[in-house]
């Protein structure tokens, strides 16, 4: 007799497997599609499903970022870029076997490290026994901020967030510098 709880667990596992399968298929679609708009649509779906997966790993902060930046804003940026580049991928694909060899070798190398990885959610893994333990235990007493992610990002790791902010600023200004402005074009004409 199947209990309701174990039935729920099975459904959860199956839906997670389905999400991972979708992510892999969509990633393959992004690479193999020759039409840039289709690739872009696959990429947006990839980000959206990834956001769901992050949520399933109890990382809602990352999920929000992925949904806003990955699925929405970067898709729109690519869309704006494709409009000026054209929809078809024009360069022919050469040296496909060399590329496959390199990518295959790299994949095998990465896969070989899986054996040494700690189990998912292992409380004795280095990630869970290092400094993150003291953050989880002490951050509320020290900062009175319930969300550990916020207190780590803005308080304990304030320097890193400062760097992140400056990177965004630098990215925006590099785009402004690289792309020609409307005024210059009208002057040239």
């Amino acid at each position, binding site marked *: 007799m199947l209990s309701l709880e174990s039935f729920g667990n099975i459904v959860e596992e199956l839906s997670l497997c389905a999400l991972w399968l979708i992510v892999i298929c969509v990633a393959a679609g992004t690479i193999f599609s020759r039409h840039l708009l289709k690739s872009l649509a696959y990429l947006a779906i990839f980000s959206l499903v990834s956001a769901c997966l992050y949520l399933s790993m109890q990382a809602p*902060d990352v999920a929000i970022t992925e949904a806003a930046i990955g699925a929405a*804003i970067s898709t729109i*940026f690519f869309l704006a870029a494709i409009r*000026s580049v054209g929809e078809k991928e024009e360069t022919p694909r050469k040296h496909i076997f060399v590329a496959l060899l390199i990518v295959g070798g790299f994949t095998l190398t990465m896969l070989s490290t899986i054996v040494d990885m700690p189990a998912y959610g292992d409380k004795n893994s280095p990630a869970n026994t290092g400094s993150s333990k003291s953050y989880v235990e002490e951050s509320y007493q020290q900062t*009175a901020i319930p*969300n550990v992610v916020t207190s780590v990002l803005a308080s304990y790791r*304030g320097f890193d967030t400062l760097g992140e*902010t400056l990177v965004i600023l630098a990215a*925006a200004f590099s785009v402004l510098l690289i792309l020609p402005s409307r005024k210059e074009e009208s002057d040239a004409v």
Partner: protein
Amino acid sequence: MQSNILLRTIVATLLPFIFMFGWYVLFHGKVSPGGGFQGGAICATALILHALIFGPKKTEQVFSQYALRVIACIGAMIYVATGLVSVAMGGKYLEYNAFFQDSHLAQFVGVMAVEIGVQLTVFAGLTLIFLKLAEQD
């Protein structure tokens, strides 16, 4: 896309709510998931949505590229200034506990100031990139 009345009506109705949600994500980021980066991104999506539906020129009548550049810089400056103030008050750079005797209040003020800076920079920066890309034809 600019003549579709359905899109125009829906977007005009939704825009203030998306914008407000961006600021909610910022100010509620201490308790719920979110923060300056996510809030700024959501606010930027609201403005980009406006530019997509009504055209970038209409958007630039509200937020000109110059204004967005200023906002982006102000955001980064708020962040840097928070650190400088904490140095001036006798702490290390970005050591919020130097602000007040009460360390919880000091942490609150420091984190909030920093997050608002991040929000402004991310919002203005991402919108700027889109507006710049959109005027390339």
